[in-house]
């Protein structure tokens, strides 16, 4: 149980570290994606019950997993996908304009 939290924590830190340290725009987007995936992992884990089945409230399904975090995870996936798409579109535009993916060569992103 603690291992999962640890894994999620490590993934989030790794993602944020990537965003801060890298100079490559695509890698920044990858860093953000890692953070988002870690969050979805956490969401699924929050709702997890050992031995639980799918959340169908019917006879024979006594122990079910918590359905709320799964609904949240779906929403989070949609939001994550749209932000990533927007970011990648921006990276394409930036690349076309500056002919580079290096942050330090793009004027305003420095610092």
């Amino acid at each position: 149980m603690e291992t999962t939290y640890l894994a999620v924590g490590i993934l989030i830190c790794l993602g944020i570290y990537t965003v801060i340290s890298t100079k490559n725009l695509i890698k920044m987007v990858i860093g953000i994606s890692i953070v988002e995936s870690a969050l979805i992992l956490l969401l699924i884990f929050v709702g997890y019950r050992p031995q639980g089945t799918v959340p169908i409230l019917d006879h024979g399904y006594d122990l079910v997993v918590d359905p709320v975090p799964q609904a949240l995870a779906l929403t989070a996936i949609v939001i994550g996908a749209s932000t990533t798409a927007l970011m990648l579109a921006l990276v394409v535009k930036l690349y076309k304009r500056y002919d580079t993916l290096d942050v330090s060569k793009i004027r305003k992103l420095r610092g």
Partner: protein
Amino acid sequence: MASPIWLIILPLITAFGLGIVKIFSKKLLKPFLALSATIHLILVIDVVIRAFEEPMIYSLGGWDRLFAINLVIDPLAAIMALLISVISYLVVIYSLSFIKEDKSKYRVPKYFLLLFLLIAGMLGMVLTGDLFNLYVFFEIAAITSYALVLIYKRDGSLEGTFKYLLAGTLSGVFILVAILLVYLSTGTLNMARIAVKFAEVPGQLKSIILILFLTGFGIKFALVPLHTWMPDVYPEAPAPYNAISSGVGIKASLYAFIRVIYVLFGFDFIANTELTSLLVVWGVITFMVAHLMAYQQKNLKRLFAFSSIAQVGYIIIAVSLATDKGLIAGGFHIVNHALMKGAIFLALGIFIYYFKAETIEDIKGLGRSLPLTSFTFTLAALAMIGLPPFNGFLSKWLIIEAALESGYTVAAFFIPVGSLLSLVYYLRVLQSLYSSGEPKPRVDFKRPRLSLELPAVILGFSCLLLGIFPRLPLDMLGQISHYLLDSSNYINLLLGG
């Protein structure tokens, strides 16, 4: 007798109905938008009037209040909803003339689609009583903002938006983690039920959740070390977006933060910890840094971006005091700042529209070419500085009084110092505006269009009106603390006793 959900649904329908309207006739587009915005404003006023008689709860889908996603309209939410809809109504009317079609003939529908989604997102943020719903609306408002900045495809807008996107996504992540931790420790997302169970949460976990919420919302409402996206984004964005973002966009995040600390954590938590002194110091740092940075700017939108950050500092000081007076002062400053910055950015938009004036040098001589717009701009700028008899003076005065009452003498001392600093750079702008110069109009120009000038003038004169007759807004704001300072009132309201 509209139900409150129409406040959110109508902008959504309008946004997605644009495509259908465009198929039938392009000429219908603008009347359709104006009509929808007007109906929306009427609906909001109707709901707000009823909410002031008795706070309203609306459960989506007719579910029981315990399980449903609720819309909670208490006095603070009503005031915010009214503010958002008034500002966005004026911005929509202004944008109908301001946004010009590009070659592909898609810019106008694209812009209004995003604008109406942004309005729906902000209204959802202030009305909702469900924590995850808050996150969803927060992201709707955020994602539409990123795209709105890019609408002109200017060269500089790409870098600014990328920075904004990174910061915004990280803020969303922080908030989602905080919401998850809340769910993990209380097992519910309904704000009132969380508030009931939150007292049992261990103190350390509470602090972690608080820090996550503060960082997450702080990025959006531009607390000082987290503000860096704002000055880069504003110069490249269209002026009506600046008005709506600075006026009410950042306030919606601020509102969400106020709601979280007062309802979830409650008055006892604020009183028993150092939260107030932390936030007061942070607010002072925020407005001092922002004023000093604003002083060095040449680009007007950048200058006003820093000025917006400074006002957030004042509001944070006022609302973190956790007194009746502080909340009223903070709420009044939220209202005032929305009106002042709305007027300033809309007037600045007219300068840019006709004269391409973007820096302090560019606006020389415009005081003669655009007398009414410049006068509005001056009114709003004087209110911004905090001179009597404008509304900015009153709310800053109330903040000082509230801070002194709670014993934060140093903070109260710094507020007039900040005002003096803002006096310096605003006077520089005004001096340039009224000095002689030969402005070169971009198009054949006689006088600005009424639909551009009227929204700015309305906002500018409302600054003066609220300064002279502050009774009505203050009476309305007097009711907000009832549901904030004592979270059991909010719990009783939402869960029905």
